[in-house]
Every structure is written in structure tokens, then in C-alpha cells.
């Protein structure tokens, strides 16, 4: 009885769609993690040597000490074991959530560090992504609908320029204009120096004040791409037979535009899933420009200090976050697309 119920659920088109997505996302995660495992082992000039040099700098060096420290490090990272065992260990540790210990901020755990920085990144990234996606689609739809018109001729070139503007350069410009020249906004950080995060009004105000420029630079940099995509989609959509048919039937423009918009927004949701990585990458570097205490700043610090466990761990967690976000977008997609709900498109 119970089995029948489960198989009935599994046969539902939307569930099937999501299951396929989950399997796919796990596969990508697995490949990504494997790449992280393989990279340090195939690239010459191993990170351990760097670490060894760093450790030995602080001590009186004798040959015995070098071999002792090296042996200790090999054991610590399990490098004395055969490769396949190392690989299994590595996978097991990642799935247990153990990403090792940071070199540069020893003895802090990588996960502890990343989770301290991640909320700042997400707090910046999620609202900025949603805002740019909505505004961009709206602008693009208008431009596409008024194709060749005055509005289109303004929106398209501006969108093209903004879509090609690197996030961090836009960030530098905004910081220079509104922070340095006009002094309207602070020059960096997520809150005023000397404050500790709390729910006081003063802190929230300071947070928002520091939030404006990074937020704006991500929104402005991302908006153009969405507008360009949406414009073309709407142009395509307005040429389909059903729109022509509805037009000949005498439906008013508002309705036509609404139909076209609804059908064009679906590919843009897929686009959102595909572009989350790019937006994340861009905002990581934006954080560096604003010295915003997010994961981008953490990666930058880790790279300058050659802190490999921290670099690896941050990327693993960022990638897991992306996969989760992707999955959420897929759920929304399955929910909105009637073809998936009803199983109209199977494979």
C-alpha cells in the first residue's frame, strides 16, 4: 500500500523533473569536489611546501626538524596513504562537513570561518540578485515590446554597456563618486568601525548605510544582462502564431503583452539558475573593493596568504550554496511552468 503511494508520487511529472535535477546537481557537486581533490595533486609546486616553509620560518631549522615537520604534515593531511584511500577520506570528510583547519588563521576550523563570513555575502547577494532580475526583466520587456522605438534605443545600448561593465569596476566608480568625492557613503566595511553586530537601531542604520553602494553596484552591473535577454525573448514571443491570432481577434495590447511576458519569463528563470555563479563571482570581487567582510574578502585573504585549506573550503561551501540556490530556482520553475506540472514535456 505504502509502496504504491510512493511510486504514485514518484510518477508525478513535477516530482520526476525535480528528482532528475537533484541527481544532476549531485553529479556536478561530485565532479567539482573531485576537481578540488585532483588539482593540488597534479599541479607542480605543492602547497605543502609553502606551508612547510612558513612553519620553518618561525623555528630554528635543523635537518631533523624539516623531516619531522614534513612527516607530521603528511600524516595530518593523509598524504602518506595510497591515492584511492586519500580520495575516499577526502570525500567522506566533505560529506561529514569537515573541511579542515586554516593555515593562516590556525587553529580555526575552515567551516567556522566560512560560516562567519557567508551571511554577509548572502545578505548582499540575494536581495541584489532578485532586484536586478526583476528590474532587468521589466526594462527588457518594455524595450522588446517597443522595439526600434525611442525607449528601446535608450535601454538597449545602456544595457549593453552595463552588462559588460565588470562589477568591481562599477564598484570602484561608485565608491569614488559617492564615497570619496561627495562623502555621502562610507568608504568600506559592513558597519562602522568599532561597532559589534547587534539588533540596535544604531547598528541597523550603520549597516544599511554601508549596504547602499555594494548593493547598487551589483544591481546595476547585473541588470543589463537580464534586460538584453528579456528583450530578445519578448521579440521572439511577439512573433508567435498565438499572439498574431490573439491580435487578430482584437485582444487589447495589455493582454498581449502580459501573455508574451509570462511566456518569456520562464527561460529567464532558467537563466537565473545558470547565471547565479557569475553573479556570485562578481559580487565576491565587489566585496574586495568595499572591504566588505564576506566570503570574497575571505578568499582574497586566503589567496594572498596561500591558505589552501581555506581556499578549498570556501569554494566547496560557496558551490554547495549555489547548488542549493539552483535547486530552489528549479522548484520555482517546476511550480510555474504548466508544462512540467502536467508532464507535457517529459524528457
Amino acid at each position, binding site marked *: 500500500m505504502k509502496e504504491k503511494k510512493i511510486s504514485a508520487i514518484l510518477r508525478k511529472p513535477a516530482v520526476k523533473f525535480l528528482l532528475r535535477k537533484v541527481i544532476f546537481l549531485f553529479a556536478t557537486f561530485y565532479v567539482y569536489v573531485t576537481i578540488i581533490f585532483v588539482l593540488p595533486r597534479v599541479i607542480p609546486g605543492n602547497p605543502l611546501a609553502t606551508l612547510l616553509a612558513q612553519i620553518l620560518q618561525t623555528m630554528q631549522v635543523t635537518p631533523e626538524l624539516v623531516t619531522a615537520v614534513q612527516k607530521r604534515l603528511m600524516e595530518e593531511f593523509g598524504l602518506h596513504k595510497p591515492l584511492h584511500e586519500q580520495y575516499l577520506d577526502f570525500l567522506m570528510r566533505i560529506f561529514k562537513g569537515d573541511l579542515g583547519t586554516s593555515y593562516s588563521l590556525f587553529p580555526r576550523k575552515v567551516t567556522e570561518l566560512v560560516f562567519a563570513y557567508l551571511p554577509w555575502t548572502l545578505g548582499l547577494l540575494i536581495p541584489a540578485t532578485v532586484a536586478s532580475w526583476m528590474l532587468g526583466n521589466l526594462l527588457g520587456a518594455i524595450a522588446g515590446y517597443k522595439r526600434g522605438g525611442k525607449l528601446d534605443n535608450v535601454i538597449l545600448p545602456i544595457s*549593453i554597456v552595463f552588462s559588460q561593465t565588470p562589477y568591481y569596476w562599477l564598484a570602484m566608480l561608485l565608491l569614488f563618486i559617492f564615497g570619496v568625492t561627495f562623502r555621502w557613503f562610507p568608504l568600506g566595511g559592513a558597519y562602522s568601525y568599532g561597532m559589534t553586530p547587534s539588533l540596535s537601531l544604531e547598528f541597523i542604520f550603520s549597516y544599511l548605510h554601508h549596504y547602499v553602494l555594494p548593493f547598487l553596484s551589483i544591481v546595476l552591473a547585473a541588470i543589463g544582462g537580464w534586460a538584453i535577454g528579456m528583450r530578445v525573448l519578448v521579440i521572439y514571443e511577439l512573433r508567435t502564431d498565438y499572439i498574431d491570432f490573439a491580435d487578430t481577434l482584437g485582444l487589447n495590447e495589455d493582454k498581449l503583452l502580459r501573455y508574451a511576458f509570462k511566456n518569456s519569463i520562464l527561460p529567464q528563470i532558467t537563466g537565473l539558475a545558470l547565471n547565479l555563479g557569475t553573479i556570485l563571482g*562578481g559580487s565576491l570581487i565587489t566585496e574586495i*573593493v568595499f572591504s566588505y567582510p564576506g566570503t570574497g574578502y575571505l578568499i582574497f585573504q586566503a589567496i594572498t596568504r596561500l591558505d589552501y585549506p581555506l581556499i578549498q573550503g570556501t569554494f566547496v561551501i560557496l558551490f554547495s550554496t549555489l547548488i542549493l540556490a539552483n535547486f530552489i530556482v528549479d522548484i520555482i520553475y517546476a511550480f510555474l511552468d504548466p508544462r512540467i506540472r502536467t508532464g507535457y514535456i517529459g524528457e
Partner: protein
Amino acid sequence: MNMAKSPSIIKEIFKIKKFTISIAVVISILLFGLLGPLFYPRDPFEMKYYPERPPNPENPLGTDIAGRDILVQLLHGTRFSVYIGVVAALISLAIGVTVGSVAGVKGGLVDDALMAITNIVLAMPSILLMMLIAAYFKYRDPILVSLIIGVTSWPWVARAVRAQILSLKNREFIYYSRMACLSDLQIAFEDLLPNMAAYLFMAFVLLLSSAMISEAGLSMIGVGLTKGVSLGIILYWAQLFEAVRRGLWWWFIPPGAILVTLTASLLMLSTALDEYFNPRLRGGR
């Protein structure tokens, strides 16, 4: 037949305003980077001027914190950024076209396997992957940076090429080639690819522009070139030495401006070509 038609196509393309403007901008920036160093023969690394000077007759774009001339850095930086972009774009194009056409022509299991790989790489955030790979190299020269960008940016090309091949595959002239017992490879290279030339050129333009942006991104996070100068490296130095907060606008504005102008013109170029070659976009509603 195609050859006889091409001159008129070129003439027609040049009548499109978007196309002529963008190609003019692209060519002038390329000339700036390629020929500039000949007319402005200074060493981008020589620290012989007074540091942090705003633009002046001796240094038209000022100097950086170490007393290096910014204009000459820009000339060499543009050259290396374009070079990295072109090599990376060619690598992506080569991988993408190979994977896409083999998948499209062979079909069946090969197609499934190749598309699974393509989709997995596509789902991985390429800029993060690039940063991660680059972080493991101690020394990064232009070829290595291009390679890192190239091997992570091909999936959409593969998918697009495959889709094109699938739509061309069942045309009559392909059947004739099959009857003539041409091999799959011959069919791919002699029948299919020439038909996609315009499309591949557009793909190249887009890859080039995204590769240059990726290069700058890699530099900014600290994993760009370790030797030499690119537009991204100039921005990285400016960031590292707080050029923005200290108001040294001549240091960080020009490299970004060149990058944006060049990549936006490239995008405009491909949009113009797309509107010309793509019948679904041609003409008004």
C-alpha cells in the same frame, strides 16, 4: 556559390550603423594596444617618475604609487588582455566545436555522454572554477591564464554547435555526402562547419569579450598574471594600493574604461550580426 555572394553581404553589413560603429571602436582599441607601444616607447615597469602624479605633460595619464607611467601600462595591458582573450576564445571555440559537432554528428550514446559532461561543466560556476584552478599555480603567464579561462568556458558553444548541427543534419546536401561515403569528420568539416561560419564568428566575439572580463576578475581576486601587465592587473594594483579611497582616479578609471568600451563594442558587434543573420530577429514586427 557562397564565395560569389560574400562581397555583397559584407557591403550590406557595413550599412548597419550598429555594426560600423562597433567595429570602428574595436579596431581603434586594438590598434591602440598593438601599435601604441611603438609610438610611446616607455617601459611599463620602470619606476623613474615622481609617484602618484595626476595627468601632466610628461605623463599624459599620470603615474602610479611606484612612479610608473600609467599610459604605457595601459598600452601594454590592452595588448596582453586582448592576447589572453583571443587565445582563451580560440581554446573554448576549439573544444566547444569539437564536442558539439561530434555529439551532433554521432548521436546516440556518444551524444548522451558528451552532453552530460557539457551540462555538468555548464552548471559549474566558471569564474569560481577559474579562480580555484588559478590559485594552485605559483606562476601564471598569459598562456596559462588563457588556458584556464578557455577550458572552463566552452560548454555553451558545444551546446549551440550541436543544436545547429542537428538542424543542418537532415538537409538534402548531407544525404548526398553520405551517399558519397564521406566520413563523419569530413561531413562535419566540409559540409556543416562552413554553414555555421557566421555563427561561429559571433561565438568567437562573445567568448573573446567574456574572456577579457574573466581575466580582469581573476586578477582582481589575486590569481591573475604573476608576470607582465594586463588591464586586470592594473586594476588589481590600483585596488591593492587603495587608489580609489585616495582619489587617484587616473589610475583605476582608464583600464576599466578601455575594458568596458572594448567588450561592449564586441557585444554590440555580435548583436548587429545576429540581427542581420538571424531571420527571426530581422525586420520589425
